[in-house]
């Protein structure tokens, strides 16, 4: 397993993401409520750059006309066909058998402020 330096925590505030190339693979690193998650920037459907799609909530409903936003910031919609993926796991929402690869992310902090912590993704 190799570790790849993504950047300083300050570069990816809550609700934001950073797309990096690690060992030739494009990976999206997301900050969801202070926790970091990384998924491959490739949609398993037709190969679009998944992480360039919008980051949003899961929209649930109790019936026509009712919209409930859940799991804010945990969903990425592919830029092409709008398939929804769970950023925390890489699985497609409506068909979890379809998935993009997810990676472990660690935050290393050596006597520096939180903002200066270093984010690593492990391939």
């Amino acid at each position, binding site marked *: 397993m190799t570790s790849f330096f993504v950047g300083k925590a300050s570069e990816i505030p809550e609700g934001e993401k950073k797309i990096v190339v690690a060992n030739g693979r494009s990976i999206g690193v997301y900050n969801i409520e202070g926790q970091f998650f990384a998924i491959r920037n490739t949609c398993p459907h037709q190969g679009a750059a998944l992480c360039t799609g919008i980051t949003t909530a*899961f*929209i*649930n*409903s*109790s*019936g*026509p006309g*009712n*919209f*409930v936003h859940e799991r804010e910031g945990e969903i990425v*919609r592919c830029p092409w*066909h*709008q*398939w*929804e993926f769970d950023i925390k796991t890489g699985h*497609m*929402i*409506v*068909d979890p058998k379809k998935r993009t690869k997810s990676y472990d992310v660690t935050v290393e902090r050596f006597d520096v402020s939180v903002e200066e912590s270093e984010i690593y993704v492990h391939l």
Partner: protein
Amino acid sequence: MEVTESKKPEEIVKKKRTIIDSDIHNYTSLDEIKKYLPRVYREQIDLWGWRLPGSLYLNGGTNVGQRADSIPPDGGFPGSDLDFMRMQYLDPSHVEYGILTGSDYSCQATPDIDYAAALSSAINDYTLEQWVNKDHRLKGSIIIPKQDPRLSVQEIHRVGSHPDMVQVIVASGAEKPYGNRFYHPIYEACVEHNLPFTIHVLMEGVGINPPTTGAGYVSYYPEYRATRPQVMAAHLASLIYEGVFEKFPTLQVVLQEAGVFWMAPYLWKMDEDWKSLRFQTPWVKKKPSEYFRSNIKVSSQPLEKTPNPEMFRQMMKAVYADETLLYCSDYPHWDFDSPVMAFPKLEDELWERIFYQNAAELYGLPARKDPTGGID
């Protein structure tokens, strides 16, 4: 000379299983039902006629769409004579149960909704008295003034608990697609009385209903037949996307006479779009094809012919025929599908689903009285 009593194998009488036919058109002639109408309408009809919209197109066969051999001995209209229907179709075709679907849906295209309600009640009373009560095999459909859900619900409550009225029926031509919440009170009543809701092609483009297609009025009868699936497809999508089957999970809807196999790629398309656009209609919780399998039934007639049997088998699978398909003859209409000749040879289990069990489960009809079936 001695006569042997043992039969040679080829002389053994072959038992044949009986069938359920989910679309038999008994003639609900306006002249017949007139006496079931309230006085005010009978007098109006005498003075000013029926004021009901008629078909825009030619038809097939003779007598406006009927099998040429279906005229009863008294010269009456095809489908008007129960004895002749028994002799020509019900008995020789081993019909265990037949669902009557009537012949005149013009009341569902008039702007006068109280008149539509009176006509609906008259047709239902006539069907009960003159058909359903006279042959235990025959079951009736409740026609409703679908232009007005409140009056429709009243009619469903009036006759819906009659054990021999087994479904609510509407024409495919409608002011709004059938998933629209305008119609939901009707579905509530259907569920309450455990009645399927059947959409039968007819009345598209007629009276107050919108044009025969979304592209406008087509000109000719074969063209109209070819475009019927467009209207039915709109109803199917509407029922799914308006969340009808989430709101009424037990409601069963029958799509009647708009064809069968076009639904396969249509379902594939809806499933694919649902993956992409789920969040726009988040009340649609499942793939459209899952609602199709749990809440939709499809009438077989007029069954499409495929270029080869293998393709037929694949298409049957693609529309989940074992779960959804109901054998329908459409007797005595000219495009009648024979119970023995319309289908290519089917596997026994699939035949049994289509020709009996799917309809028995849908309409709550009992198993065959003679489990070995009637005599061929």
